């Protein structure tokens, strides 16, 4: 069971690395934006916030697209072949989820490191808290991804929805630019956006050394949302061919 799960993860990696567009999209593009953000004025945390904004945006887009690749596998028939093999559903899904979260974790790590080493971001504290918040955020976005994969029929639809959700959640999430007197609608979006919660929590940790005790609210919201969406997605993908 463990062996099958790891084999699914490994085949997923091989598929991904065979596609240069995927690497450009998950690493080159956010690095370019991180570089661009380094020209922002270095005051009042604006620059740091923008870097973390780029990170949460691209980690989310990566996870949603990865989950959507299950729909490509359905079209290509490999999903059906997997499901008709003597492999339990939970081993199949564990294999996929392991790959998605590993890739997202490595991506986040590379973006944080390059921000610090290449572009002078002042990250030098709270690494443990950082890991916890990132893990919970990755969990939430994986849940959203599986939910979308269960909801839609094609990877194109998932990507359209993903772009919409992540752009709105980031741009209206009080991350890249401050808003004066935002409308109730915008306030609401900020209040529910996992991108906003994650970016602010990361900033509090890295710049002010915030402890987990002060981050219970974002952790609970992201964790709860993730659990709900993940469960819905898993149930739906199990029955929906």
């Amino acid at each position, binding site marked *: 069971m463990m062996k*099958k799960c790891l084999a699914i993860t490994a085949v997923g990696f091989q598929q991904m690395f065979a596609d240069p567009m995927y690497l450009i999209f998950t690493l080159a593009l956010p690095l370019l934006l991180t570089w661009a953000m380094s020209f922002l004025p270095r005051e009042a945390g604006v620059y740091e916030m923008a870097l973390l904004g780029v990170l949460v945006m691209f980690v989310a887009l990566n996870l949603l697209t990865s989950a959507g690749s299950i729909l490509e596998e359905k079209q*290509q028939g490999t999903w059906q072949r997997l499901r008709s093999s003597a492999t339990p559903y939970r081993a199949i899904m564990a294999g996929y989820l392991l790959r998605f979260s590993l890739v997202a974790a490595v991506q986040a790590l590379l973006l944080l490191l390059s921000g610090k080493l290449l572009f002078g971001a002042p990250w030098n504290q709270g690494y443990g808290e950082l890991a916890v918040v990132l893990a919970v955020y990755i969990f939430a976005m994986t849940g959203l991804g599986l939910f979308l994969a269960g909801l839609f029929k094609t990877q194109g639809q998932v990507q359209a929805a993903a772009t919409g959700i992540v752009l709105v959640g980031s741009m209206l999430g009080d991350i890249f630019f401050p808003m004066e007197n935002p409308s109730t609608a915008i306030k609401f979006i900020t209040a529910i956006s996992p991108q906003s919660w994650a970016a602010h929590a990361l900033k509090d940790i890295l710049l002010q050394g915030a402890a987990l005790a002060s981050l219970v609210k974002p952790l609970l919201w992201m964790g709860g949302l993730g659990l709900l969406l993940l469960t819905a997605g898993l149930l739906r993908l199990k029955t929906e061919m």
Partner: protein
Amino acid sequence: MILEVKQLEKSFGARRAVAGINLLLNEGEVLGLLGPNGAGKTTTLAMIGGLLQPEAGSITIGGWDLQRHPLQAKALLGIVPQEPALYPQLSAAANLRFWGTMQGLQRSELNKAVAEALAVVGLTERARERVVNYSGGMKRRLNIAAGILHRPKLLIMDEPTVGVDPQSRNHIHETVKRLQCAGTAIIYTSHYVEEVEELCGRVLIMDAGKVVAAGTVAELLRAAGHAQELVIKVNRPHQAVLSRLTAIPGVREAVMVGQAFKLLTLKAEQVLPLAYEYLLSQGLQVSAIEIHKPNLESLFLKLTGKSLRDQ
């Protein structure tokens, strides 16, 4: 008994894709599943493969109920889907190693199983190449290799020879015969009566989700009677002409298939001149005339008034 299917049913919305199918299959038996587009063949196979939840009925593979013991049942099963289901970016060998692992082969068995499956489908030489670079026929052969890797007791083949060149088709037929000799039970779906007559001991003919005829090829041919099938190819077939052809004395059934009219008759020698004369009088050009002895196609035509193939 390797497979036992009872009263299987499945609807998509208001459409009853499978409306109460029963079938039994013994070790080493090849069962042909014939039927026109949309007859419900793939849907039936998807349920046997554990991919679709049946609405009613039961499926037992090697004594294991598919609902209650899916893993044990699926371990005996191999599938060859209608469209090749492979990872295009991986090599053929890597694909097979992966599918073998998923079917529970141990590391020690894997190399041998992969090599054997590749040899069976004649792809040993091209094993290191990525599947994207394969031709359509090669993909179909690899698709078969992925289905037989773990030596399943029951193999489901959904139209494995569609769009395949004659050479690959022969190869696939040989593979089926070899597997049968080794004791594998096979369900083989197809639109082509010739290959079903050649490969399958027993045949099930489906239409609109139901079995319309079942038996050995010999039994079914007897049921087809002595009616011959008259195929007349013309330049512009149309419906009005068809109804006049149906009215010719001695014509039992008539259908239009692609560029041809197919007439079922006991008296080809009487019907043919009348039909020919009529077609000419309508200004149609006749490009070919064939007379077939009774086959499964003519049985199907007789039973349903439809043709198995659209073209």
